[in-house]
């Protein structure tokens, strides 16, 4: 490697800077894992006990308490679906405008872009449960807090995907509208909107799917939905009822995933 000729003859895929960057990433990964393994606190007695506990839980979960479905789980499930749907609609209402403001071509003011991007990152960084804690403190426990929590959390995701869609849109039709003297609002409605419509619907569907899953846990902090029933069943150690709720969530999530797949295939 010392002489220049051998170096020229040898084919190396990456530049030294690239190799250094890759090495740094690998080193970082190994260091992180090594540190975590070395310092994490695990109580070995609990671990030895785990198989027994799992078997015990399995035994308590069987037979599943099917009779409880209609009086208790069904209303909670409907509430969960309402929360998810309302949160998606609200999230779209708030996320799409912010997405437009964050797109560099639709809003040619860099400072507006930066503020909008910060809003997107910040709303996404606060988890649904944290939002739910805040809204429960504001509006009291119940599905309203849950719907608002998921809606605010989804602003970031919707806005990010949407602004990327807007930035990828074709300039030609926008310039044609500008040449015809269209105002900014007309450009958005007639120029950008038809182009980003497919993105809009796919983001809406995708987020709805995620929101149904998220709304299942809101009940843990009292924000309505099937999580309330789950939390109550766990607190009362009614494991057969817990099993029923888990099965319900599983079936609903699978059904929604199939529905989303079918709609996507037909419409988009």
């Amino acid at each position: 490697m010392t002489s220049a000729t051998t170096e020229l003859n040898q084919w190396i895929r990456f530049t030294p800077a690239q190799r250094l960057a890759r090495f740094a990433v690998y080193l970082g990964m190994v260091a992180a894992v090594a540190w975590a393994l070395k310092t994490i606190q695990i109580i070995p007695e609990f671990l030895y006990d785990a198989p027994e506990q799992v078997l015990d839980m399995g035994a308590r979960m069987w037979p599943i308490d099917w009779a409880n479905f209609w009086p208790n789980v069904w209303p909670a499930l409907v509430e969960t679906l309402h929360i998810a749907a309302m949160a998606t609609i609200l999230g779209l209402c708030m996320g799409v405008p912010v997405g437009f403001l964050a797109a560099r071509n639709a809003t040619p003011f860099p400072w507006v872009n930066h503020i909008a991007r910060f809003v997107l990152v910040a709303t996404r960084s606060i988890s649904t449960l944290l939002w739910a804690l805040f809204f429960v403190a504001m509006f009291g426990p119940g599905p309203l807090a849950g719907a608002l929590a998921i809606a605010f959390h989804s602003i970031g995701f919707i806005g990010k995907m949407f602004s990327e869609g807007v930035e990828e849109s074709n300039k030609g039709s926008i310039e044609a509208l500008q040449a015809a003297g269209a105002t900014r609002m007309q450009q958005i409605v007639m120029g950008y909107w038809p182009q980003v419509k497919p993105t809009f619907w796919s983001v809406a569907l995708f987020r709805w799917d995620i929101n149904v899953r998220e709304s299942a846990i809101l009940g843990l902090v009292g924000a309505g939905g099937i999580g309330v029933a789950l939390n109550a069943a766990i607190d009362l150690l009614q494991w057969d009822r817990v099993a029923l709720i888990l099965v319900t969530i599983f079936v609903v999530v699978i059904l929604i995933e199939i529905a989303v797949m079918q709609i996507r295939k037909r419409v988009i």
Partner: protein
Amino acid sequence: MTNVETSMVTRADFFRPSIWTRLGYALLIVYVIYAAATLGLSWERIERGVGYGAKFLAGFFPPNFTKSDLIPGLLESLQIAFLASLFGTLIAIPLSVLSARNLMPAFITWPARIIIILCRTFHPVIVAIIAVKAVGFGAMAGVIALTVASVGFVGKLLAEAIEEISKKQIEAIRATGASFMNTIIFGVVPQVMNRFIGFVAYETDSNLRHSTIVGVVGAGGIGGTLFSAFQRYDYDFVAGISIAIIALVMLGEVIQIYVKRVFR
């Protein structure tokens, strides 16, 4: 919108929505009103809520970063995220190879797919509840819960990536008489490596977010500290923890973007 349509005299018909679109929007509006009523949404409630919110936000200032629970909690969240990403990825790699339909026969792909779907269905917090029952309170339950989520996520994406690879390179390597393992190492891995690193970076980022909330059900990390601070009305500490979590998550996102750029 309406004045746009009327100002364009004849060509306005182009942009007029079809009857089905209008019906769809009308149904949507009816649903929103109905759902808003069932959620108990009303103007006076919002007004009252905003009042509470202002009081509540006032309790946040000044944020308190000085309590001794903050740093250990954050570090435990990081440990959970790293270990769950490691274990999840290690389990997901063989599982995704088994569930790729271009490499394996159907009787192997189906069981592997079902495992991946099962891991993906439940939110990490729900898995954490079960894990807490199994291995008790603490970081171990968090690691298990997020490992399950990682297996589902990386497994699904990696299986899709493997199914999209070019068949030609695999056939070329098979033609040289390579064994199955050699086909995987020299035919499949080079084609999916960069995307795989992207998935793992994204997964670690997502684990970091979730590791800050699994503590709510007792599965370790900063979430437990946050939840108990909330229940004690210790709002300035809540604000401190929240800001620390947001900073951590944003840092994770920056690192994720950097890693993706390195391996583009």
